[in-house]
């Protein structure tokens, strides 16, 4: 598993899957490259299309370093980490797929470094930033043990963190605060596909995001934030989008 050192000294781990024209895959909060893209079947889907993959563990996640101060987790810093990985792989320009917090990161990546991306897919997000929508104070209280502070998917995510399966509580707090220090207003100008499960509360405003970005929109019937990831309709829509006009 290659490790690179980011601009602020934090070490980032990633793996690669061989194939032509690798696609950069960026996972969501409290997930990992493995959970979001490997066991979900995405690497298999990408390989079936002859494409390779770059699978990054975002800082704070998986095998990457997990600083515990919120300054380390701005979307701009996470995007810079992805550029450092592309540099290390000597990839000038790639297609990128992001899910949830990974999609917010890709949104910033594509707006900040348009010369490094071809097409982007933003999965499981809307025009809002969901940590802020849930409420930072509520999330912090829930992470401190107030189980009534949040409900639904937010409570599930807090439970994943508190189970120790994803990251420490201080790391989770730092990520949530770092990602929400400023509103995410980046407007990528590259070809963009927005994908969301029909029942995804995080991506309820996906149509508004797609409209704001002039992006294509794909809604996956019957799926929610967690189980849209594996959906064949998601994979097919993405591969068609990436391979159109090539």
């Amino acid at each position, binding site marked *: 598993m290659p490790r690179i050192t980011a601009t602020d000294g934090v070490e980032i781990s990633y793996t690669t899957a061989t194939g032509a024209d690798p696609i950069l895959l960026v996972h969501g909060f409290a*997930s990992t490259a493995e959970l979001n893209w*490997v*066991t*979900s*079947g995405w690497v*298999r889907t990408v390989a079936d299309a002859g494409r390779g993959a770059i699978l990054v563990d975002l800082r704070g996640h998986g095998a990457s370093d997990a600083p515990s101060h919120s300054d380390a987790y701005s979307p701009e810093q996470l995007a810079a980490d992805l550029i450092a990985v592309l540099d290390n792989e000597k990839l000038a320009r790639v297609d990128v797929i992001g899910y949830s917090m990974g999609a917010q990161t890709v949104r910033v990546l594509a707006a900040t470094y348009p010369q490094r991306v071809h097409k982007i897919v933003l999965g499981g997000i809307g025009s809002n930033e969901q940590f802020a929508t849930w409420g930072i104070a509520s999330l912090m209280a829930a992470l401190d043990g107030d189980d009534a502070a949040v409900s639904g998917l937010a409570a599930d995510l807090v439970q994943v963190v508190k189970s120790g399966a994803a990251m420490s509580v201080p790391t989770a707090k730092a990520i949530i605060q770092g990602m929400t220090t400023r509103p995410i207003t980046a407007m990528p100008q590259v070809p963009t596909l927005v994908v969301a499960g029909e029942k995804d509360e995080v991506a309820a405003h996906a149509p508004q995001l797609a409209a704001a970005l002039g992006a294509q929109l794909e809604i996956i019937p019957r799926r929610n934030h*967690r189980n849209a*990831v*594996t*959906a064949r309709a998601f994979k097919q829509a993405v591969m068609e989008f990436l391979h159109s006009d090539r």
Partner: protein
Amino acid sequence: MAAITFNLPDLGEGLLDATVLEWYVAPGDFVERGTPMVEVETTKSAVELPSPQSGTVAQLHVDEDDNIEVGQPLITFTVPDDQAGIVGTVPEAAPAKKRITLRPPEDD
């Protein structure tokens, strides 16, 4: 012909059950080993399970949207008798990109 049944594997993280989201195969289909077979969801994540076996699907033991516990029957294949000896043996190590390997029930 012989029947081989595969149970829901341990999906890790101490998860004891899963919900079937969508079957990609149906009784009567011939399925190649390694082909995506079913999507299941746990409280942690959704997972796509590749077929552990080349063969003809004889029976799906769980309906979509229904729950299944780890170790309960998931799918039964019909295979020619000359391949039936595979029962009781662990499938070959999966390629690195496939981290979930289904095993015949005798192994658990």
